[in-house]
């Protein structure tokens, strides 16, 4: 089971990034071994539009089955749902780091995202 977490920097103890499509980094964690890899989201951060769509396609491409993030917009939600990714919402008041988020998810403390949490940002 691979878990994608949005983070401000690449690392297990780095702070979470509340955004999905324009997150700084995706930390992809192996649920069993807790080994992680990180992918920078540079191209999508600078995209004029469709950042969420591309970010969703990218984490699906990395075989993530679970996403932990602060927000998921409507277009990203559609792609993630089509890709069979289950989404859970992190709360920066309760979880600070990637490790916190994964631990909270394992304890079943994160609310599952079943609809977009925010409006689209395309202009």
């Amino acid at each position, binding site marked *: 089971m691979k878990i994608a977490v949005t983070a401000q920097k690449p690392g297990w103890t780095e702070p979470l990034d509340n955004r999905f499509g324009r997150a700084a980094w995706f930390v992809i964690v192996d649920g069993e071994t807790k080994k992680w890899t990180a992918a920078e989201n540079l191209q999508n951060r600078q*995209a004029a*539009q*469709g950042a969420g*769509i591309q970010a969703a396609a990218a984490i699906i491409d990395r075989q993530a089955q679970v996403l932990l993030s602060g927000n998921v917009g409507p277009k990203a939600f559609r792609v993630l749902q089509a890709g069979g990714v289950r989404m859970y919402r992190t709360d920066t008041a309760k979880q600070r780091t990637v490790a916190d988020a994964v631990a909270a998810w394992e304890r079943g403390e994160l609310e599952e995202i079943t609809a977009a949490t925010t409006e689209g940002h395309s202009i």
Partner: protein
Amino acid sequence: MKIAFASGKGGTGKTTVAVNIANILQQTGVDVQLLDCDVEEPNAHLFLLPRIDWSVPATVRRPEVAEEHCTGCGVCAEFCEYNAITVLKTTVLVFPELCHGCGVCAEFCPERIITESDRAIGVIEGGAAGGIGFVQGRLNVGEVLAPPLINQVKEKAPAAAVTLVDCPPGTSCPVIEAVRGMDLVVLVSEPTPFGFYDLTLMATTLKTLDIPSGVVVNRCDIGNDELYRFCRREGLPILAEIPHDRRIAECYSRGVLITEALPEYRELFADLWKRVIDSLPSPPDREGREGTGTSP
């Protein structure tokens, strides 16, 4: 002759100037029409009260994918400049609200399974207000593609001796589309820091597009002289100065033309038009000039 009214900053008086010029020209027997290209918020109709004779949908192309034949190669998603199509294995997701209808996906699909259909994004309406020809575009709420609609408003408009184009505010793609092909752009501004700053952006844009412009200073007795110094430095003619007159604001709020309700201003608008004519680059006809800039 095609003259546009633009500003950069919103609320400086583009529509006020455009509709009053239209009124003055019509009264002197000129074959004039006004195109309201501020398609996200068209308001010239509030002043001209046109009779609408025709209405046609404005459309953009949208891809349709015969998914059952998709091999999942992802070429369409890779080539889409607007991230409007994405492929997960053999599931193809299209986001019509992001699609600009460029057709790249259909063109490059190796299986040739993408076709294009029309999607309505708004309407184009035309008619007349007294002797003034009138065409406006209205973008549907939630749609973002103003430029194709503006382009279609200009294409659907009949020929007239003088075409006046009321532009949207800002300096981005919708304005670029609206000013394309104009003989001159009247920049309506105000001598405030905000008005001045946006005027510099719009003046620079027009310089890049090689379209001549002149400036109308609205509420000329407020603010500072920064705008005047800029115009002098850049060689931009001042076409008119409109004072900060409470009665003008009252006319606006009631949807009444200044040139009807306050006859003492008729001369100001007549002079403004005379200066526009004087500022036009002489004979070499400017038809067929291509604008620059591509995507909104």
